């Protein structure tokens, strides 16, 4: 068991990293088609992706706009729901939390179809702001969970203490609740950011070919065969994910966010 | 078979030494308490005896058999955990019969033996209950019955009373001791509570910082502490630092008569139990003036806090023992009988000398 355990973990890690490594390697190809191992390795594809190919630079810009917009909006939507849930625990707040998590819980293709109809009626189909709102609603469940975990970690006697020292509810919120939940809010924000960056199927229905994010652009190019530029896109995305989650792991309590037992370390 | 022997057992976790060079003999059929403050290595030592932790060096012998490399499930020493670790998915009877059913004992025989054990811990009516439906004291009895079901050669208990409230704790200590004596099983109990250790143990092992400080009967440990740590940890004591000289010890400007076995001029630490110092008019050695700074009457005992030339000290009188009645501010005299003084080498000086 002592050798077998780490061996199994290493095996899982290798298998998990395998397709990612292959994509990364393929990005270095000099030619127009994908080979692994790469032939005639070059970094020219990075230039194409970030600078010279307008198709990809526009897609990258769209992805960033959607991700940042959706993350901000999702946090703004999730905060009052989480706060209501924590402070009142009422039936209404529980219903709201359940409804807010529903889009994330069902197969995304169903919600994508629904949003396609929804924006079709409202006239937002194919506009980028519809994409932002769609992703915010789809991924709202994540900040809802992280902020709720943060609020639960607040010792309620701190609130009583603040009240005995003359703090009103809004002052308590500003001076006690907000500072203690900021790490959790930020974690939630980044979870949405990364997942929105990578989300495909909902955006596929909502964009209606009106605009393309990087994932959509890659899917569109799938039929024409792979090009190494797509692999560069993939590397960028993996890089962003690793960076974000490493930051969360470094400055936030990742095991606790994932539901680890508090009493042990 | 003749008890359990630890030879030079050490354990380090990463860079920290949890247990250092422990040599101990646990006599067959006796109850030994591992006593010490938290973090002294007593639980680690118990886990090594159980086989849940491998010693970094040293050997464990059971009788003549070397069991150092035997895994926990082959040693089958019954163990009671601090949180009892009962299985919530099994009933009380199934918990007790666990060791029997996994070793292939027939269903009806296992149930019958479980019932006998439940009888032994006075829970015969609770066999079909879920663990969640039991009180703390009942859970502890189940944990004890479960550990005894496999008829272990050694019985281990890790802080078994810490999850119980104070009143129940004292009852269970007596009950556990009676049960252990009846079964005559070699038993090791880890505790940080000296009352618990003194209630139950034939022999107490006092530990601190991963080392054994003293091994002895409860009376030995209390009346003849071998060093300042034991004198301080077990019961209460007044401490004074001084230097040995002809016929006694010099503490500041005061000379105390005593019989220290040290070369004159060695730094020493002197201890005296509060109940051994006297506030009386008997003539004798080591009398000195004292001023009463605080009086505390706890019912069975009365404490006088004094300021003397040696420094502050506490003197204790039991109810009915007589003695003067003093109030704060009174001037009196205190006597420290030479035979009641414990003299230890000064631990700080000993460290400095190393």
């Amino acid at each position, binding site marked *: *068991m002592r050798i077998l*355990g780490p061996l199994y*973990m290493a095996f899982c890690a290798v298998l998990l990293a395998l*397709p*990612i490594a*292959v*994509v990364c390697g393929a990005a270095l190809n000099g030619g127009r088609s994908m080979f692994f191992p790469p032939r005639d390795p070059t970094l020219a594809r990075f230039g194409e992706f970030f600078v010279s190919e307008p198709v990809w630079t526009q897609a990258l810009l769209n992805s960033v706009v959607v991700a940042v917009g959706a993350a901000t909006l999702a946090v703004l939507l999730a905060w009052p*729901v989480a706060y*209501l849930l924590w402070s009142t625990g009422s039936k209404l707040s529980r219903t*709201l939390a359940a*409804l807010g998590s*529903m889009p994330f*819980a*069902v*197969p*995304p*293709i*169903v*919600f994508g*179809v*629904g949003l*396609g*109809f929804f924006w079709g*009626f409202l006239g937002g189909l194919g506009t980028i702001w519809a994409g932002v709102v769609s992703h915010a*609603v789809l991924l709202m469940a994540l900040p809802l969970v992280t902020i709720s975990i943060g609020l639960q970690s607040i010792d309620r006697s701190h609130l009583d203490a603040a009240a005995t020292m003359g703090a009103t509810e809004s002052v308590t919120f500003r001076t006690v609740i907000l500072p203690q939940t900021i790490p959790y809010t930020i974690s939630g924000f980044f*979870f949405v950011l990364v997942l929105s*960056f*990578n989300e*495909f199927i909902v955006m*596929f229905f909502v964009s209606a070919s009106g605009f393309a994010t990087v*994932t959509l652009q*890659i*899917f569109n190019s799938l039929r024409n065969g*792979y090009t190494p530029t797509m692999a560069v896109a*993939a590397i960028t*995305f*993996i890089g962003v*994910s*690793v960076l974000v*989650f490493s930051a969360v*792991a470094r400055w936030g309590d*990742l*095991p606790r966010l994932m*539901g680890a037992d508090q009493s042990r*370390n | 078979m003749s008890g359990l022997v630890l030879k030079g057992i050490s354990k380090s976790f990463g860079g920290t030494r949890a247990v250092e060079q422990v040599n101990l003999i646990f006599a067959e059929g006796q109850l030994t308490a591992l006593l010490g403050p938290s973090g002294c290595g007593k639980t680690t030592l118990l886990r090594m005896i159980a*086989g*849940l932790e491998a010693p970094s060096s040293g050997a464990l012998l059971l009788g003549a058999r070397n069991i150092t490399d035997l895994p926990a*499930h082959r*040693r*089958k020493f019954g163990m009671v*955990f601090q*949180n009892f*670790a009962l*299985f*919530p998915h099994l009933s009380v009877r199934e918990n007790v019969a*666990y060791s029997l059913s*996994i070793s292939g004992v027939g269903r009806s025989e296992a149930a019958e033996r479980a019932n006998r054990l439940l009888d032994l811990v006075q829970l015969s009516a609770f066999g079909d209950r879920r663990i*969640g439906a039991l009180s703390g004291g009942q859970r502890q009895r189940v944990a004890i019955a*479960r*550990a005894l079901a496999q008829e272990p050669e050694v019985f281990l208990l890790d802080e078994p009373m810490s999850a119980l409230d104070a009143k129940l704790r004292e009852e269970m200590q007596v009950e556990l001791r009676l049960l252990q004596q009846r079964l005559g099983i070699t038993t090791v109990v880890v505790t940080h509570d000296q009352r618990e250790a003194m209630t139950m143990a034939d022999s107490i092992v006092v530990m601190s910082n991963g080392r054994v400080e003293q091994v002895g009967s409860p009376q030995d440990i209390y009346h003849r502490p071998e060093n300042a740590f034991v004198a301080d940890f077990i019961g209460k004591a007044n401490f004074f630092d001084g230097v040995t000289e002809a016929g006694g010890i010099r503490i500041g400007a005061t000379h105390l008569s005593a019989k220290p076995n040290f070369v004159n001029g060695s730094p020493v630490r002197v201890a005296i139990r509060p109940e051994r110092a006297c506030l009386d008019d008997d003539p004798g050695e080591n009398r000195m003036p004292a001023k009463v700074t605080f009086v505390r009457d706890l019912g069975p005992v009365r404490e006088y806090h004094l300021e003397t030339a040696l420094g502050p000290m506490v003197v204790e009188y039991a109810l009915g023992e007589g003695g003067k009645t003093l109030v704060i501010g009174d001037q009196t005299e205190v006597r420290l009988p030479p035979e009641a003084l414990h003299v230890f080498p000064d631990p700080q000086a000993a460290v400095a000398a190393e």
Partner: protein
Amino acid sequence: MTAVERIAADTADRPARERLTPRRILPWLLSAVIGVLCVVPFLLVIAISFGRKIEGAAWVWDFTLENYERFFVGALWPDEVTFLYLQQLGFSFWYAVVASLLAVMTALPFTLLLTGLSRRAQAAWLAFILSSLSLSEVFIVMGWDILLSNNSGLPALFKSTGLTQWLKDVGWFQTLRDWGLASPRNVKFKTSQFATILTMSYLVWPYAVILLFPALSRLDRSQSEAARTMGAGGWTVARTVILPAIRLPLFGSTLLLFVFLLGTYVAVTVFAAPAQHTTAVAIYTNIRGANLNAPFGATQAVILLISAGVCLGLGHRLNRWAEAR
């Protein structure tokens, strides 16, 4: 303002404030926003599933069960019965069940080992797992596609290392051909159920770890230790202590992954043979693709939603049951 004055002022404008505090408006505002954004899209799907397609045009509102009838027994019923759409749903279920089971079974020992590590090591592993989890379906499919495609990746590797020849020599090549995993010349993973299920399983494997992590990290280690002091070896501990303790979270996680996989789109289009495509692919074809039959696409979405809802409800109930115990 002194304290007394402030109290007086408070009392004075209380009636006015009771009508319009943010505290009173907030819940209603929230309900409206969430109702519109989270609920209306689903209601639209359900409503449109009863609509009717008009040949050569779009569709109109209606209340007809034609679409549902077509889904279960085919458009030409009662003259002719086809189970094409049910078969697609069957493939959805089949891929999702096998892939989620595979993911949970392989993630379980991994997560168990993970919870035994130090807090720092756990955080590092979790960051790695989460990075892989957030990775787009598109990228994952791309990676596996390169790995499994016929003229690069593993088949090429098999050929060049002589593994193909060795397989032919020992006779296992024929077995692979029988399973559809080889062409006459070399091993072939595209298109195959093997590749589809492997990729789908890979897709949810990080989710499986994340879902199992809380339950496993709350596992009381002293229970396993107690079992060991009573004579239980490694496998006996796993069988009699660990598995019973996590039985329900294990089942709940599998259900959640299953639901998630019901909607897989990219992996199926790339790796599964057209005859073995799923409902998710059919939904796309009807709504955005060649067929342009939105009501029928909506019907299929509703059926997928109901399947998912039933499973989620079941999983939720099981998890609560587990917590209550």
